[in-house]
């Protein structure tokens, strides 16, 4: 997909298409609901002492990411032809058009708004990895810097005509690298810096399974806008993306269920929802480029792969990724990016890029390099940001604060009366 993505525009260039405009507006709203969905999803999986802390963090992520995106983020991501970063042409959303131009069927202001939702959701996903130990004010500063130093360059490289578009053959339909690998690796970097939670907090169980389920449903629901809207038009590609998203999610959930049943002897809500999310993550970069049969494969592999990734990170490493953000979003996103390089069908891809199974090798090489660059860049930069912040303020909650919970110690607002 390109920065001013005409990728699949079926209509005449420069003609306003009210169908596409309304679909992207609806998609933006669908993606937006994923952020509060994440608050329920993550909050439900944590202790009851962390529920309103997770809601507050998600809300402030919406605020911070909206502001930085409007002021400078969008401009840095989607302007100019710089390799590393864009320019200030669209600062404060100046010079954006409210009518159709440049070959897209909607308009640039709408595109900027839609992309804003992606920035918000990516930030919200990060919160799950480092939950229950990073101070609230630290997180606010982190997200503000991260949105400009990590998210904007990533979006520029993949969609804004920067690094990846200039030097590599890369496809990322709806943000496998920009959103999921980036969020997973960022979470990992924060966790690597601040360390684990106490044994008590780590061993606590999900306090509200229905909330976690509800949050997952919001995510699944929003994902239709996340992937479907990334066609940037109300057209066949959008329909294709929505359909393969559903298929991959269901396949991954089923694969997770089967493996968990074989390994543990029972299946539960938390496993099923993690499986569904893994499938949605994996199909994200591939949604507009692969056949229906490939989406079945992508989903099935995603479910199995993420199951073993979660169990590996939980049992074999000391990393305390609280809600398996890296194991699900990171590993799922890496698999999805590789799968795009394997299964992309030149008959579907507008630019005729072919995956390995269709005889192309450039794409798979490009995808692998892009994944590696994303992992290294997001980890190093996020680690540097949190290190820098630690020079100015306390980053971690104390052991006592962690025990009592951030709901009370930081916000004074326990989610429940008892």
């Amino acid at each position, binding site marked *: 997909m390109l920065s001013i993505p005409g990728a699949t525009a079926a209509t005449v260039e420069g003609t306003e298409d009210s169908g596409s405009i309304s679909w992207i507006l609806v998609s933006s709203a669908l993606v937006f609901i994923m952020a509060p969905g994440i608050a329920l999803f993550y909050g439900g999986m944590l202790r009851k002492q962390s529920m309103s802390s997770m809601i507050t963090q998600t809300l402030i992520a919406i605020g911070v990411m909206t502001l930085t995106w409007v002021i400078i983020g969008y401009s840095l991501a989607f302007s100019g032809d710089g390799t590393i970063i864009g320019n200030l042409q669209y600062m404060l959303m100046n010079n954006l058009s409210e009518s159709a131009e440049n070959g897209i069927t909607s308009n640039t202001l709408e595109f900027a708004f839609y992309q804003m939702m992606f920035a918000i959701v990516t930030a919200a996903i990060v919160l799950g990895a480092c939950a229950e130990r990073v101070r609230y004010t630290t997180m606010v500063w982190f997200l503000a810097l991260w949105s400009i130093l990590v998210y904007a360059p990533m979006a520029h490289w993949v969609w804004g005509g920067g690094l990846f578009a200039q030097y590599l053959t890369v496809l990322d339909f709806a943000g496998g690298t920009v959103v999921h690998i980036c969020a997973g690796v960022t979470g990992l970097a924060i966790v690597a810096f601040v360390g684990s939670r*106490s044994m*008590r907090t780590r*061993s606590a169980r999900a306090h509200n399974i229905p909330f976690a389920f509800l949050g997952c449903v919001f995510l699944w629901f929003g994902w239709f806008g996340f992937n479907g809207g990334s066609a940037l038009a109300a057209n066949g590609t959008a329909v294709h993306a929505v359909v393969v998203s559903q298929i991959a999610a269901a396949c991954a959930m089923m694969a997770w269920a089967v493996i968990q049943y074989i390994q543990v002897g029972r299946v539960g809500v938390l496993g099923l929802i993690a499986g569904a999310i893994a499938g949605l993550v994996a199909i994200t970069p591939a949604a507009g480029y692969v056949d229906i049969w490939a989406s079945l494969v992508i989903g099935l592999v995603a479910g199995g792969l993420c199951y073993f990734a979660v169990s590996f990170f939980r049992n074999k490493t000391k990393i305390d990724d609280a809600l398996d953000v890296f194991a699900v979003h990171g590993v799922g996103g890496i698999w999805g990016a590789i799968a795009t390089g394997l299964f992309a069908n030149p008959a579907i891809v507008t630019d005729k890029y072919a995956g390995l199974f269709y005889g192309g090798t450039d794409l798979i090489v490009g995808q692998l390099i892009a994944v590696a660059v994303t992992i290294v860049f997001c980890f190093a930069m996020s680690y540097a940001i949190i290190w820098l912040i630690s020079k100015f303020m306390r980053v971690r909650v104390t052991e006592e604060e962690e*025990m*009592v919970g951030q709901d*009370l*110690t*930081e916000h*004074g607002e326990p989610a429940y009366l008892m």
Partner: protein
Amino acid sequence: MKMIVAIIRPEMCQPVKDALKGIGVNGITITHVLGRGSQAGLKFTSRVGEFVVDELDKTKVEVIIEDDSLEQPVIDAIIKAAETGKPGDGRIIVLPIEKFIRIRSE
């Protein structure tokens, strides 16, 4: 007969259960409780001043022993399993029992 009531850290519940099982005590009752110790809760400082959280999560373990000679081994086992050395490790209370009736066999 004695009843031994231990109020411990929640994360120490499993080690205490294991330790009791290790000395042959299987029957226990566990309750999740809220409370504070002699420090009267934890004091935190925020931007708007100090505040105290004085309802901390604790776990109460109740054991009834029919043989009084088990009293000291049970106490030792609980202390060994639940001690961290920091404030908040809890208390052990030993009570006499007036009657002890098994419901099934009466």
